[in-house]
C-alpha cells in the first residue's frame, strides 16, 4: 500500500512537472519573465553598440577624450585648453568618431543663465587627415574644400584667410545663409595631422566676434597651424602612410571571424623600437578590434628617425573596407 501511494505521488509530481511544457506556460528566461520586481535596465543608455571607438589602453590620450569641466574645454590629446564664458555650457555630448575620422569634440551653447538677447553655438570638431573623404592634405586645404563645396544655400562672407589666435596660426572662413539670417564663422588649425575647428553659428556677429576674441586665452601646442601641425614636441610625430611596405619589417594580417563591410580606421603610435605602443580604433566592432590588436602586436616597423634619433611616430591604417573618396587622391601628404 505504501509503495502504491509512493508511486502515485511520483506520477503526480511527474505529470504536474510536465504540464507547463505541454501547455507552453512561460518559464523565466528568453522571452518570458514572471518576475514583477525585475531589475530595471538603465534608461537613456546605449548598451548595444555597433562599430564604436576604443583604445588599447586608457592612459594614452585620444581625440574624443576632451571634456568640459568648470567652464573649460580641455583636450589632452590635442593639448588644448579653452576657457568658456561662464554662461556657456555643453548640454549634450557628441556622437562617437565616424569611420571617416570625423570627431564632434564639444557642442557649446548658452546656459539657462544666459542673459543675452541673441543666441549662438560653438561646435568644436576635428577631422583626422589620414581618413578624410576629401582630397585635402592639411587643414588649409580642407577649409578651401569646404568653401568650394558650399551649396547654394550659403554665400561666402569671408574667403579663407590666415589669422592669429592665441599666438597660433588659424585659417578663418565665414559664410552666411541669407534665408536663415545665420552666419557660420569657422576657425581651423592643424594639430597632430587633424584639422581642429571651432565653428561659431549665430545671427549676431558682435556676439561671435566677442567669442572669437575669447579664443585668444586658449592654450594650444606649438605645432598648431593650418599646414604645420604634424606632431612633435610633447607629441609623437604624425606621418601619413607610415605603415607602408617599406617601413613594415614584420606584418601579420588580422583574422576576422565575421565578414563585415565597414571601414575600420585605426591610429597607432609606434615606439622608438619600432613596436606598436598604442592603438586607437576610431570605429570598429569589438571582434574586429580584437583581431586587429592581435595582429598589430606582431608588427615590427623601421624606427622613425628625426634629427638622427629614433622618435615615436603616429600613423593611420585603414582596415576593413577601403575608404570611399569621391575623387582620386593626390600624392600623399608632405613628408619631412
Amino acid at each position, binding site marked *: 500500500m505504501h509503495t502504491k501511494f509512493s508511486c502515485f505521488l511520483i506520477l503526480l509530481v511527474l505529470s504536474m512537472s510536465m504540464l507547463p511544457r505541454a501547455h507552453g506556460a512561460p518559464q523565466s528566461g528568453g522571452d518570458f519573465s514572471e518576475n514583477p520586481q525585475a531589475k530595471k535596465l538603465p534608461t537613456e543608455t546605449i548598451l548595444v553598440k555597433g562599430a564604436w571607438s576604443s583604445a588599447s589602453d586608457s592612459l594614452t590620450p585620444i581625440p574624443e577624450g576632451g571634456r568640459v569641466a568648470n567652464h573649460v574645454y580641455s583636450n589632452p590629446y590635442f593639448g588644448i585648453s579653452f576657457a568658456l564664458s561662464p554662461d556657456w555650457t555643453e548640454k549634450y555630448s557628441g556622437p562617437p568618431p565616424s569611420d571617416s575620422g*570625423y570627431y564632434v569634440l564639444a557642442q557649446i551653447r548658452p546656459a539657462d543663465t544666459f542673459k543675452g538677447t541673441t543666441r549662438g553655438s560653438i561646435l568644436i570638431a576635428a577631422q583626422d587627415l589620414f581618413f578624410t573623404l576629401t582630397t585635402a592634405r592639411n587643414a588649409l586645404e580642407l577649409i578651401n574644400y569646404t568653401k568650394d563645396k558650399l551649396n547654394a544655400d550659403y554665400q561666402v562672407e569671408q574667403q579663407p584667410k590666415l589669422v592669429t589666435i592665441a599666438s597660433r596660426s588659424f585659417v578663418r572662413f565665414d559664410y552666411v545663409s541669407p534665408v536663415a539670417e*545665420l552666419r557660420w564663422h569657422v576657425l581651423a588649425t592643424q594639430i597632430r595631422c587633424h584639422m581642429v575647428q571651432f565653428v561659431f553659428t549665430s545671427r549676431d556677429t558682435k556676439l561671435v566676434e566677442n567669442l572669437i576674441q575669447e579664443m585668444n586665452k586658449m592654450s594650444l601646442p606649438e605645432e598648431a597651424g593650418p599646414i604645420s601641425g604634424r606632431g612633435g614636441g610633447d607629441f609623437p610625430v604624425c606621418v601619413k602612410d607610415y605603415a607602408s611596405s617599406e617601413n613594415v619589417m614584420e606584418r601579420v594580417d588580422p583574422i576576422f571571424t565575421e565578414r563585415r*563591410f565597414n571601414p575600420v580606421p585605426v591610429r597607432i603610435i609606434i615606439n622608438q623600437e619600432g613596436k606598436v605602443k598604442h592603438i586607437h580604433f576610431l570605429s570598429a566592432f569589438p571582434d574586429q578590434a580584437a583581431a586587429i590588436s592581435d595582429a598589430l602586436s606582431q608588427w615590427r616597423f623601421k624606427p622613425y628617425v628625426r634629427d638622427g634619433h629614433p622618435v615615436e611616430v603616429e600613423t593611420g591604417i585603414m582596415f576593413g573596407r577601403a575608404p570611399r573618396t569621391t575623387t582620386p587622391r593626390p600624392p600623399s601628404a608632405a613628408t619631412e
Partner: protein
Amino acid sequence: MKTVKLASVLAILAALLVPGMAFAQIDPGVRSGTGVNAGQPFPSVTASPNDLAFFQTGLAQFNEHQTVTGNNPGLGPRFNLDSCGTCHSQPATGGTSPASGIFPFVGSNPQSQVIANGVVNGSTNTIPFFVLANGPVREARFPFFFDRFGNANPNAPNGGVEDLFTVSGRSDAGSCSLQQPSFDAARAANNIIFRIPTPTFGTGLMANIDDSTLIANHGAQGSNNLGISGTFNHNGNDGTISRFGWKAQNKSLMIFAGEAYNVEMGISNELFTQDRPLPGEDQLGSGLPANCLNLAGTGYPEDITHSDGTSASTVTSDVGLFNAFMQFLDQPTPSTTSPGGATSIANGRRLFSAIGCATCHTPSLTTQASKLTLGLSHATANLFSDVEIHHMGVGLADNVSQGGAGGDQFRTAPLWGLGQRIFFLHDGRTSNLLSAIEAHESNGSEATQTELNFDQLLTPSQRQDILNFLRSL
C-alpha cells in the same frame, strides 16, 4: 475713466500676448485639404496592362486577410496582424499607421480590434498595454533576453520581434497552445522597444538608386560644419548598401516583404521558409511545439510560386506580388500651397536646407536605368534621405542591433509623404512634428547641432515655415 484704464490694460495685454501667440509655432497636423496624395502606381504602370495587372493583384494581396487554414492559409502560429494593408494604411494602402478621427479617417488601430474582430481568441490573448485604439500600430522587441530569474540580461542581446498574438484558441488552430511574450514584465524591466510600420510609397525608386549615387552624396556631405557624419549599413552577403527598414537592415523590397510576411504574420515563404518562433524559443529553447507546426496543413513554405497559375500574376507568390506592388507605387505628391501658403512652404524648404536638416534628409537622388518600368528609370526620387545610418543619441537609442547598425543608429527616415503621416519616429512616440524634431538632440546624437539651429537660432516664424514645408510633403 475706469473704462479707459481697463481698455488700456487690455490693449497692452493684447499687444504683449497676441503677437506671442501668433508666432508660437505649431505643427499644422495631417494635411487634409488636398485629398490623399499617395498610393497610386506610376503612370507608366497604369499605361501597361501587364504591369497594372501585377500592381492590382499585388494591391489585393496586400490587403488580403490571412487565416490559419482556409482560402488564405498560413497565419501564425505567432503574428502581429493578419494583413499587410491594415498596418500600412495611412493615408492609403502601402502607407503607415492609421488612427481614427484623423484624415483620411482610415480607422482605429487594427491591433486594438483583433479580439473584437475575431482575429485572436480573447480567452488566450490579451491586448498588450502599448496597443491603443488611437494607435500607432506597433511591433515589440526585447533588447535583451531574460535570464532564468526573470531579469533582463544586458550580456544577452535579443532585439528580435516579439509577436503580439498567438493563434491559440482559434477554431482553426487545433491544439496549438502558445503564451504571449511577457510584455508587462518587459515594461517593468525597461526591456521593451517598439517599431511602427515604415511607409512603402516610392520604395521602388529607393531600390533603384545605385550605390555609387549614395556614396557620392555621402562624400559631398563630408565637410558640413554641423557635427554630422553617417555611414551605410551593408548587406551581409554581397556587401552592397542595404536600405529598407528603420535601420536600413534589408537589402531589397523582396526581402523586406518576405521577412515581414514571416515575422509579422507568421507566414513562411520562399525567402523565409520556416514558421518563426519567438527569439527566445528559437535561440534558447527548442523551437515551436510540434502541434503548432504546419497548422495550415499545406506543408512548407506556406506561400509559394504557383506552377498551376494561368497568368503571370497568378503564378507569382504573395511575396512576389507584394514586391511588385511596392515597386510600382509612385512617390507621394507634395503640396505647393498647403499648409501655410506657397511662400511659407518655399521659405521653409530653403530654411530646412540652410540649417542643416538636408545634410541627412537629402531632398532628392536620381535613380539608374530600370528594366521594370519607365517611371523608375532615371527618375528624381524626392525621398529626403541619404539612406545612411546615423547615431541618434541616447534619447532615441533602442539598443537593437541590425546588420551593421548599433543600438543608437537609425537610417535617415525618408520624409516624402510626411504631411499625411500621423505618428513619428521609429516607435511612434509622438504625433507632434515639433516633438519629433526636438527628439533629434540628445547625448551622442549627430543631429544635436542642427536641432539647436532649429530650436535656438531661428525665429518662431522661420520655424513655422519649416513645419509648414514638412507638412506639405
